[in-house]
């Protein structure tokens, strides 16, 4: 974990929790036992409020589901694309769509991103990086990736919601 300089800390806090690794792989992997994946967003980006904190995952994104049972398809499955929930972060809306073949994620694309200013810059940088990491890890049969990288809370939640919504 990076030990960040004091001066930078407040800015990073506001950037929708950009430290982190999006590891959104497992639902796409067939396993012999059920597998469940949940994304947790550990800090609100703004001070605690009376209502749900902005950093908390919305119920739909959190885990609409589910323990996924993992019988392999008998024949090669056609690709299907599932749209994730649009997710708010303090800088705008993030929404992704996920393409799956069987239970493998084969593509992740942003449908909506915060634009303009630093958030747009970050989104433009972070999204391709996240997509690359997700796909690289999938293709290499890696279970998880260790390493500092940027992620977007909204992106992670939107991908999770797409995975949860994907038809079996």
């Amino acid at each position, binding site marked *: *974990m990076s030990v960040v300089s004091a001066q930078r800390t407040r800015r990073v806090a506001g950037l929708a929790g950009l430290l982190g690794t999006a590891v959104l792989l497992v639902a796409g992997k067939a396993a012999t036992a059920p597998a469940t994946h949940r994304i947790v967003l550990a800090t609100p980006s703004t001070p605690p409020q009376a209502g749900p904190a902005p950093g908390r995952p919305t119920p739909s994104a959190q885990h609409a589901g589910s323990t996924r049972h993992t019988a392999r398809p008998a024949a090669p499955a056609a690709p299907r694309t599932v749209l994730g929930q649009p997710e708010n972060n303090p800088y705008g809306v993030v929404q992704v769509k996920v393409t799956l073949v069987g239970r493998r994620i084969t593509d992740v694309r942003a449908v909506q991103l915060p634009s303009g200013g630093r958030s747009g810059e970050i989104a433009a940088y972070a999204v391709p990086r996240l997509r690359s990491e997700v796909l690289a890890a999938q293709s*290499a049969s*890696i279970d998880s990736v260790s390493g500092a990288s940027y992620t977007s809370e909204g992106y992670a939640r939107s991908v999770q919601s797409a995975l949860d919504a994907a038809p079996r």
Partner: protein
Amino acid sequence: MGTVISLDVRGGLPGTGVAAALDAAESVLHDADAMFSTYRDDSWISRLARRDVRPAQLPAEVLEVLAICAEVESLTDGLFSARWRGDGTLDPTGLVKGWAADRASRVLTEHGLPDHCVNAAGDVVLGGRPGADRSWRIGIADPRSPGALLGAVDPAALDDARAVATSGVAERGLHIRDPRDGRRADGVLSATVVGADPAVADGLATALVVAGAAAPGLLDRWRGRGWTGCLLGADGTLSDPDRILRPVATSHPNNS
């Protein structure tokens, strides 16, 4: 903590058991955030920094984390320190993620889900196995290239290690600083530590990044004492003395 944490659990439980276990693990993570987040004015750590609370009033978990910080400071000759801000305050940020992920992992096991992978923003804590016939395979990110991996490690083959912690000099204005003099660390792009204790692993990885050119020597001191790891230097040199990195195919059938 401002981080995204991913919980991957294998195996099922009757009824709502899995959801309940995940809820409990998530609750522990949010508790850790409430205690340690420097982004929150009401965290114990922030209150301690404002001298709003005396050490004797701190909850056991905070004292435990501060004690681990002291232990890692000693192991690293001060390259890791909770006093890295240099203003007399204590900030355990450098190992809190590993500690929190460890707690979440233990909660999952207690709730009947011993086979899991917790990834706290790049610090990975493992339990059991992903499937009957294989062990967890953890990629190590190559910080120079989005989506690229330096390789993959098999912690089960490394003394059944539970923790894979990677620290690095991130882009965009985040810098790891040397607690001893406040200077920006350079020389090491990424350091990975593999071993038994996730909080300590997190701290050791941070210390390796601070160590810069001295990192390989520091890693050598810990190898054979239950730790191993690898380093990517700023000059592109990969240091992997125990050969823990396995090659990763760029395209591979999904056969997990």
